[in-house]
């Protein structure tokens, strides 16, 4: 009984990290496209397009992303970063855990652990952020600002050029791609699973950071 408890404890320690995180991610929030757009957009006033782009790039850099594409004329930024699970035994560095002396005897249970070993060793997630700023021609009165936040308001017309205005709607989309390579080498057909991240908390946190960055930008820090 005690052996069972301790072996289950060991199993929990070894596997919980990755599996728990993945299970939590698969709870996708159901929402329509419009709701999704509202989630992903926020309005920012008082900065020129260059300043807003600059603040956005700074926030993206704070988050550890690298900018892949940026276009000032269109107001778009694409950035990416990768993640692989932390593991206590050093699988991420490519070491074969079964060859570590203290763990050697466990190779008797290798069938179950073999699957786990290859899973953790070759698992990777890529994140892409795609940000667009869209100009809004007219400023809306302070009282109505809150209800227009994130929604497309008919009384706001889009101007033709980004430089005409100081009122923008920023929209960001985060995409997550999970990859499992059969070997360590990149393969032509890796097992990959991509999806847009739909967690409202993520977008709220991102826009909190962007608001702070916009403030710093206005202060020219």
């Amino acid at each position, binding site marked *: 009984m005690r052996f069972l*408890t*301790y072996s*289950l*404890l060991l199993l*929990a*320690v070894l596997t*919980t*990290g*990755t599996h*728990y*995180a993945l299970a*939590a*991610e698969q709870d996708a929030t159901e929402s329509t496209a419009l709701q999704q757009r509202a989630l992903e957009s926020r309005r920012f006033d008082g900065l020129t397009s*260059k300043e807003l*782009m*600059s603040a956005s*790039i*700074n*926030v993206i*850099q*704070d*988050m*550890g*992303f*690298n*900018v*892949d*594409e*940026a*276009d*000032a*004329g269109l107001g778009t930024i694409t*950035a990416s*970063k*990768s*993640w*692989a699970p*932390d593991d*206590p035994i050093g699988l*991420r560095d*490519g070491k074969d855990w079964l060859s570590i002396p203290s763990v050697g005897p466990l190779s008797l249970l290798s069938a179950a652990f073999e699957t786990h070993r290859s899973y953790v060793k070759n698992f*990777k*997630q890529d*994140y892409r*952020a795609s940000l667009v700023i869209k100009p809004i021609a007219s400023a809306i009165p302070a009282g109505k600002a809150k209800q227009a936040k994130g929604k497309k308001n008919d009384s706001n017309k889009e101007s033709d050029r980004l430089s005409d205005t100081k009122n923008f709607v920023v929209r960001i989309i*985060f995409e*997550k791609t999970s990859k499992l390579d059969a070997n360590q080498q990149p393969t032509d057909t890796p097992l990959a699973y991509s999806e847009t*991240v739909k*967690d409202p*908390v*993520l977008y709220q*946190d*991102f826009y909190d*950071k962007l608001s*702070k*960055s916009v403030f*710093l930008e206005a202060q*020219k*820090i």
Partner: protein
Amino acid sequence: MKSKTLTWALALFIALPACTTLNERILGDNNQSALAKRSYQSRLFATNADKVLRNVVSTLQDQDYVIERADKELSVVTASKASGISKTKITVTVRSKEKDQTIVRANAVKNFDQIEDPKFYQVFFNALAQSLFLEAQSID
């Protein structure tokens, strides 16, 4: 009986902190504030932005980086360097604070981790300063 619950409690204690949530992975861990990060990732140069941007590109190339993307209007350059199994990717942005005051900000990622060691950025900015000095001294 008591030791059994204790064991399970211990199991949870050990296992839970091992997972980072998806949001943390995307937004970046909060062990350093944005301001602290920007302070060691940025430098101010007393030159105009165009000159600085040109020198950023040449400095990166001097350090064996391959330029992947460069945008003049937004003054963003992304470059990467691969040595064996490790790959370092760096994004540098140049902003003009005033007419002859330029802020350069660099952020780099090595494999899967952000580079949070100020020394790495110090090396880059020293090389950039030297390049700007040399350009200022050259006869056009």
